[in-house]
C-alpha cells in the first residue's frame, strides 16, 4: 500500500493494482471487456507476426527452403492475413472502443453491457477454431478464399475457417450495434454530436460501416460453406453458379473492412495530434464528416479489387468512385498537418507513432490512387505493389495508430506511465523496419513479382533479402513494446488522472477509473480540443485539484516535478 505525495483531496491515492483473475471471467464492465479484447488481440498479433517472420524467412532465397512445399507456404500467408485482420486489428479497435467510448461520453458503461460481454466471448472460440483448422487440411486459398480454389480444391480446414469468421462477424455486428446505441443515447448533457471527441466520431462511422457491411461477409461465407458441404453450386459454373459472385459479395464487405480497420485509427490520430501538440484540432467538422463520407463512399468501390476479373466495361465506374475516396482522405491528412502547424509538439511515444502514421499513410494513399487507375492497376494487380500498398494502410496506418493509442491510453488503463525512452527506441526501429520492409515491395511488384509465391525469379533476390532483414527488425521492435508494458505494470511511474493535460472526459477520472467510471457526473468542457485558452487551463487545473496531480506532460522527466510514490 502506497500513497502519492499529492495534495489531499484527490481520489487517486491508491497505487493501481493489477488483478489478473478479473480478466479471465465473464464480466459486463466495459473496461474489463476492453482489456479482454486487447489482450486477446495482442495474443493473435504475436501468432500472426510469427507467421509473417516465417514467410519472410522463406523469401530470403528464390527457391523453397523453409517450408517443404508450396502448399505449406500458402497456409502461412492465408493464416497470417486472416488472423491479422479478423483477430488482431478489428478486435483491437473493439478493445479501445469499449474502454474509451463510454469514458469519453462520461457514461457508466456501454448501452448493453451483457451483449458487450457476449460479443467478446465469441472471439476465443473463433480463434480456437481458426487454429484448429490448421490440423484438418488447412485453409490455403488466401484470406480472400476465391472459389473454386476454396471450394473444389481445398481441405476441410477451409470450412472451419469460414465458421470461425462467422463467429468474428457476429461478434463485430453485436459490438457495432452497441456502439451506435451508446453514442446516440448516452452522451452527457451539453455534448451534441459536434462536441464529441473525434475518436467517438470515428467509432460511430466504423460501427455504421460494420453494421452495413458485415452481413455481406456472413452471406458470402454461408454460400461458401453450402458449396463445400452440401453440394450447392453458387460458385460453380458447372452447376449454373458464378465464381465472380463470391468476389463481388466478398469485396462488398472487405473493402469497407479496410475502413473498419482504419477509421478508429483516424480518431486516435486526431486525439493524439491535438493533445500532444497542445493545439485545437484543425477543422473539427471536416474531420468528423470526412469519416462519414469515407464510410459511405467506401461502399461503392469494392470492384477495384476485381480490375483483372470484372467485365471490362464495368471497371471504369469503380475507378471513378475509388478516386473520389482520395478527397476526404486528403482532407484528414491536411487537417492533421494544420493542427501541428504552430503547435507545441511533444515527442511522446503516442505523438511519434501518430506522426509516423501520417508520414507512412500518405504513401499508402498515393499508391492507392495509382491502383485506382485501371490501366496502371492492370500491371501491378496481385503483385507485391498491392502487398506494399495495403501494408502501408493497415500497418503504417492501423497498427502505427494502435501503438499510438497504446502509448496515449495505457496510463489511463493501468494507472502507470510507459517508459518514454523505450517508446522512442520502439518508434525508431518500427519506423525504419516498416519502411524498409514495405517500400521495396512497391518496386518488386512493378518489376514483375506476383504476390503469394514461395519461389520467385532469381533477379528479385536482392530486394527480397533487404525486405526480409527489415521485417526481422520490425518484428523484434514489438518485443520492446511488450517489455515496456511489462516493466510499466511492475514499476512504472504513477500516471495520475490526466498526464497529458487533455480535455476529453476519460481524463476527468482516476487512472484506472473506478467501477462506475466517475465519481459524480462529469461535466464536459465545451470543446474537446479547446487548448490554448484560459478556460481550458482552468478546467484542467480543476481536475488536478479534485483528483490529484499527474505525471508530467513533457517527455523530459527532469524538467518537472513528478508525483513521487512513497512508502513502498
Amino acid at each position, binding site marked *: 500500500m502506497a500513497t502519492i505525495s499529492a495534495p489531499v483531496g484527490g481520489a487517486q491515492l491508491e497505487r493501481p493494482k493489477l488483478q489478473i483473475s478479473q480478466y479471465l471471467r465473464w464480466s459486463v464492465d466495459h473496461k474489463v471487456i476492453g482489456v479482454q479484447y486487447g489482450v486477446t488481440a495482442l495474443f493473435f498479433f504475436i501468432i500472426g507476426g510469427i507467421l509473417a517472420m516465417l514467410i519472410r524467412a522463406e523469401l530470403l532465397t528464390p527457391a523453397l527452403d523453409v517450408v517443404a512445399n508450396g502448399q505449406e507456404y500458402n497456409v502461412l500467408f492465408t493464416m497470417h492475413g486472416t488472423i491479422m485482420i479478423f483477430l488482431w486489428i478489428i478486435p483491437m479497435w473493439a478493445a479501445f472502443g469499449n474502454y474509451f467510448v463510454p469514458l469519453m461520453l462520461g457514461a457508466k458503461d456501454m448501452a448493453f453491457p451483457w451483449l458487450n460481454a457476449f460479443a467478446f466471448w465469441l472471439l476465443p472460440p473463433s480463434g480456437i477454431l481458426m487454429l484448429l483448422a490448421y490440423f484438418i487440411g488447412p485453409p490455403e486459398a488466401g484470406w480472400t478464399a476465391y472459389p473454386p480454389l476454396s471450394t473444389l480444391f481445398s481441405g476441410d480446414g477451409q470450412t472451419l475457417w469460414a465458421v470461425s469468421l462467422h463467429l468474428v462477424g457476429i461478434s463485430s455486428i453485436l459490438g457495432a450495434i452497441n456502439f451506435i446505441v451508446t453514442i446516440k443515447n448516452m452522451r452527457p448533457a451539453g455534448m451534441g454530436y459536434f462536441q464529441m471527441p473525434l475518436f467517438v466520431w470515428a467509432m460511430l462511422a466504423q460501427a455504421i460501416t460494420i453494421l452495413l457491411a458485415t452481413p455481406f461477409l456472413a452471406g458470402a461465407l454461408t454460400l461458401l460453406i453450402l458449396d463445400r458441404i452440401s453440394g450447392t453450386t453458387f460458385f460453380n459454373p458447372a452447376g449454373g453458379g458464378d465464381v465472380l459472385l463470391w468476389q463481388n459479395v466478398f469485396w462488398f464487405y472487405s473493402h469497407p473492412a479496410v475502413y473498419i480497420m482504419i477509421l478508429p485509427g483516424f480518431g486516435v490520430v486526431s486525439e493524439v495530434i491535438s493533445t500532444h501538440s497542445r*493545439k485545437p484540432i484543425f477543422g473539427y467538422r471536416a474531420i468528423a464528416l470526412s469519416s462519414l463520407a469515407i464510410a459511405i463512399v467506401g461502399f461503392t468501390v469494392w470492384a477495384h479489387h476485381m480490375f483483372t476479373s470484372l467485365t471490362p466495361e464495368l471497371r471504369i465506374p469503380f475507378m471513378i468512385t475509388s478516386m473520389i475516396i482520395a478527397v476526404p482522405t486528403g482532407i484528414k491528412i491536411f487537417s492533421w498537418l494544420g493542427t501541428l502547424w504552430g503547435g507545441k509538439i511533444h515527442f511522446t511515444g503516442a505523438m511519434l507513432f501518430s506522426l509516423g502514421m501520417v508520414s507512412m499513410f500518405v504513401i499508402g494513399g498515393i499508391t492507392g490512387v495509382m491502383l485506382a487507375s485501371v490501366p496502371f492497376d492492370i500491371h501491378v494487380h496481385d503483385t507485391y505493389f498491392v502487398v506494399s500498398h495495403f501494408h502501408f494502410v493497415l500497418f503504417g496506418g492501423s497498427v502505427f495508430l494502435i501503438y499510438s493509442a497504446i502509448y496515449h491510453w495505457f496510463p489511463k488503463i493501468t494507472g502507470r506511465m510507459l517508459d518514454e525512452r523505450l517508446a522512442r527506441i520502439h518508434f525508431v526501429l518500427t519506423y525504419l523496419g516498416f519502411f524498409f520492409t514495405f517500400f521495396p515491395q512497391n518496386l518488386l511488384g512493378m518489376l514483375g513479382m506476383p504476390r503469394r509465391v514461395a519461389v520467385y525469379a532469381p533477379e528479385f533476390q536482392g530486394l527480397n533479402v533487404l525486405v526480409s532483414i527489415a521485417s526481422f527488425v520490425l518484428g523484434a521492435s514489438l518485443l520492446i513494446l511488450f517489455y515496456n508494458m511489462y516493466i510499466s505494470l511492475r514499476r512504472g511511474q504513477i500516471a495520475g488522472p490526466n498526464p497529458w493535460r487533455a480535455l476529453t472526459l476519460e481524463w476527468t477520472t482516476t487512472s484506472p477509473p473506478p467501477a462506475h467510471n466517475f465519481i459524480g457526473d462529469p461535466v464536459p468542457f465545451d470543446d474537446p480540443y479547446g487548448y490554448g485558452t484560459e478556460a481550458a487551463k482552468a478546467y484542467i487545473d480543476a481536475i488536478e485539484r479534485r483528483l490529484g496531480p499527474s505525471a508530467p506532460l513533457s517527455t523530459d522527466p527532469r524538467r518537472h516535478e513528478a508525483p513521487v510514490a512513497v512508502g513502498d
Partner: protein
Amino acid sequence: MNVRNPNSSGRSSSAIIWIVLAGLAIIAGGFLIATLTPSLLPAQASAQAVEVDELFRFLLTIGGAIFLLVQGVLAFSVVRFRARAGDTSDGPPIHGNTTLEFVWTAIPAVIVLVITIYSYQVWTTTRAPQPNETVAGVVGARFAWTFTYDVAPEDFPADVDIAQLPENVQATLAENGSIQLVSNQFHTYVGQDVRLEMVTEDVIHSFWVPSMRIKQDLLPGRVTEVRFTPIEPGVYRVVCAELCGSGHGDMAGQIVNGNLVGGWVIVHPDEETYRREFLEPETLSVLFPPEDPVELGRQILASGRYPCNTCHTLDDLGWVGTIGPSLNGIGARTQRLDASGHPDMETYLHESIRNPGAYLVPGFGNLMPQFNPEPTQPNYMPEADLEAVVAYLLSQTE
C-alpha cells in the same frame, strides 16, 4: 498557412515568396521522382506498355509532389514547432480556416478528376480492337500455360500438299482445313496485333506478362480476352498472378540450364523469322507426325500441350517440377505394380494419367489433374495422345 500573426505586410510578402519557392521545389521534386523511377520498370515490350508507362509517369509526378509536400510540412513542423524543453504552454487556439480547407478539398478533387480522365483515355486505347488482329488461345491449368494457334491451309509451308497428308492427320483437320498448334511458349513478332482468348481447366489463374503491362484473369465458366501488340523482339516471362494452389509460384516462365521452361512470350523480330523459326517447322511436325509412337509421345510432351512439366522432373525434356514424383526412369519403376495392382507398366502408366487419384505414389498428395478421354471434359487428352505418351514414358528406363 497564416496561423502566425499575419499583421505586418513585410512578413506576409516574404511568406508568399517562401510558399512559391516551396511549391516550385515540390513540383520539381515530383518530376524528378517521375523521371528516375520508371527506369526500374521491366522492359517496355508492347504498344500498351508505352501508354501505361506514360500514365505511370504522370501519376508519379503528382504522387511524388504530394509525397514531398506532406513529408516536407511534417518535417518542417516537427523541427519548427517542437516544444522547447520546459515549455508547458499551449499553442494558439486556432480552429480552422475555411479558405484553406476549401483549397485542400478542391485541389485534390481536380487532381483526381484529371487522373480519372487520363486513365480512361489510356484504358480505351490500350484495349481497342485492331483490324487485323491474330487470335490465339491460352489455356491455364494447374500449374502450366498452354497456347493454341489455328493454322489455316494458306499458312502451311508452300510445299505441303494437303492430299498427301497421312490419313490420321487428315482426320484432325478442321472444316476449313486448318490445324491446331500447341505450345508452352507463345510465339509472335514485332507489330503483330494479338488477341488472346483464355480459358481455364480448373481454378482461376491470371495471365500476366510484366513486360507487356497486360494482365487478365482466366475464369471458370467464361472466356476472357486480352490484347497486345509487341514492339520489341525478345523473350518475356509469363507469370500467373492469381493464387491457384501449391504450384502457383511455379506457374511462370523459368530459365533452367539456359533453356526457357514454362510460360514465355517469344517475340520474333519480323514475320519472316516467325514463320521460318516457329510456324513452318511446327506446322510440319504436326502435319507429318513421327510414325514411331515413342517419338510421337516425346513430341507431344515436349510441345507443352499438357501441363506435366511444372509438376514433374524429366531430364530428357528438361523438366524440373517437384510437385509430383520424378519421371526419370519411370518405365522401369516396376515396384508400383504390386502396390497398385496393375498387371504391367503400360496399364499402370495409362491409369496414372487417366485416373491419378485411384493410386497415389507414397509421399505425394492427390494433386495431379485427371486427364479425360472426352473433349467435353476438362483436361481433355485423346486416347491416341495418351497411347503415344505412355509409349514414350515406357522408354524412359533410366
